[in-house]
């Protein structure tokens, strides 16, 4: 039971990170119907931005942890948003209205460009930081080991819950959210009503990238290491999460992220960490066979 609880905590932490990244995939898919394969790499860039900000802050001698964390987050979100915005402008917008595969190919190209760019400017070796958060809470003292939730795990889970709530409210209740949903459903009509479709799409990329930056910063604080390849692996997992939850659906992305994190943690905990990725993808395949639109995807029932 203790072991189960511990894996549950680990899985939720991991799943939160995947969920935050998955939102970027799902929102972009919703609005322009393409998979932004470079999104995982924007996440990776944000983790490096966080690393740089972190080192700079250490160097200038700011030691108040909350202040430092906020500064790192803001910096990472700004840089990441800039990348997300730029990727859309140079790689996707010019291809809008061209054949369906064109932006996909362009996205894969952007992904390769970003990976290689970071590899060149930051080096291929793993970069590490010393742990920022050390404390934690012992939930249960067991005979073999204690069930613990560390400070950073609490931070990750709480931040994710808060962000996802705020984000869902933005999409459901604000005029920006309505503009995004209208572009999702009928871009031509949205334009007829005075919505600047290009700007709305740009903002969607920026929002997705900003959330990925939160994930990137948390990833750095949690694992303490980053390299130029983390975007690929986390990106594929988050993409899987988005598909599992039902691509285009926000709650789906969150649910999918959590499920992927849990599957991974339990598989690694009870079977072997060797095949945890295989388990993730096997479950994805099974879900898609029986529920092709994902867990919370919308089958089209409306008359339009």
């Amino acid at each position, binding site marked *: 039971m203790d072991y189960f609880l511990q894996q549950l905590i680990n899985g939720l932490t991991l799943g939160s990170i995947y969920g935050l990244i998955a939102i970027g995939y799902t929102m972009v898919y919703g609005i322009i119907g393409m998979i932004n394969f470079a999104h995982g790499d924007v996440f990776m860039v944000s983790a490096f931005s966080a690393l740089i900000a972190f080192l700079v802050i250490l160097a200038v001698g700011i030691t108040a942890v909350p202040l430092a964390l906020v500064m790192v987050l803001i910096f990472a979100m700004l840089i990441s948003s800039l990348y997300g915005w730029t990727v859309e402008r140079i790689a996707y917008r010019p291809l809008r209205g061209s054949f369906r595969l064109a932006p996909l190919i362009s996205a894969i190209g952007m992904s390769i460009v970003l990976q290689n760019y970071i590899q060149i400017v930051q080096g291929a070796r793993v970069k590490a930081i010393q742990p920022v958060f050390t404390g934690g809470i012992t939930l249960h003292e067991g005979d073999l080991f204690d069930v613990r939730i560390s400070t950073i795990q609490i931070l990750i889970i709480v931040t994710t819950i808060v962000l996802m709530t705020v984000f869902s409210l933005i999409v459901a209740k604000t005029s920006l959210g309505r503009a995004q949903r209208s572009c999702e459903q009928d871009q031509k009509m949205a334009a*007829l009503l005075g919505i600047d479709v290009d700007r709305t799409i740009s903002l969607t990329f920026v929002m997705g990238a900003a959330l990925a930056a939160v994930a990137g910063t948390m990833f750095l604080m949690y694992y303490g290491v980053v390299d130029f390849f983390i975007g690929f692996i986390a990106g594929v997992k988050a993409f899987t999460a988005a598909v599992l939850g039902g691509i285009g659906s926000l709650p789906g992305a969150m649910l999918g992220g959590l499920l992927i994190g849990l599957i991974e943690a339990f598989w690694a905990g009870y079977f072997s960490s060797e095949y945890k990725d295989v388990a993730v993808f096997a479950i994805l395949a099974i879900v898609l066979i029986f529920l092709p639109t994902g867990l919370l995807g919308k089958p089209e*029932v409306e008359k339009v």
Partner: protein
Amino acid sequence: MSQAMLEVSGVTTYYGNIVALRGVDVHVNQGEIVTLIGANGAGKSTLMMTIFGKPQARDGRITYMGEDITRMPTHKIARLSIAQSPEGRRIFPRMTVFENLQMGAAITDGTHFQSDLEKVFAFFPRLKERMHQRGGTLSGGEQQMLAIARALMSRPKLLLLDEPSLGLAPLIVKQIFESLRTLNQEDGLTVFLVEQNAYHALKLAHRGYVMVNGLITMTGGGRELLAREEVRAAYLEGGRH
């Protein structure tokens, strides 16, 4: 003579290399109801969309209140207080009736939202009952009412309507046309109306145009066109009045 509110001069529009408008001249003066009639495929909807820059005119010029809007992006044209209830209604299917109306008011600052809402509900009480239903599940007629109501929510000075009577029961059509007359007379709303229902449209309109194959072939006062033999033969005989 004062300048027309909307002036379309010599406009040609293409879909790829297929020509849909071949030099159209149309104008709408402030305070008028003007109707455009023509057979299926004549290019009526194309003209309505060309006014909004989707697609853009290849040649010719479109001005609104003296401003050249021929190459203006669609959303900027909408922000000049021109609204359109387009062909096919284009209701946002996964938004509620209320949200669709909020979308209509997207370009306003929101200060008149509540009173505008009450006004469109007075025209279409049906929509009030359906306020929280998703647009995609409304009946065809209810969607048509919503499309018109949504256009009105932007507080337009010029309203373009593409076949508002399509799919509606005769009684509702009559009611919508009455509403248009009221809006025109009391609020000074200018209306540019595309209709298959030529009899009602021409009776309502101050002036009318007849379009054939991407060209305006006839124009005149509403009742004057209604009296013409060619118009009666082509658009009214065996018609639905």
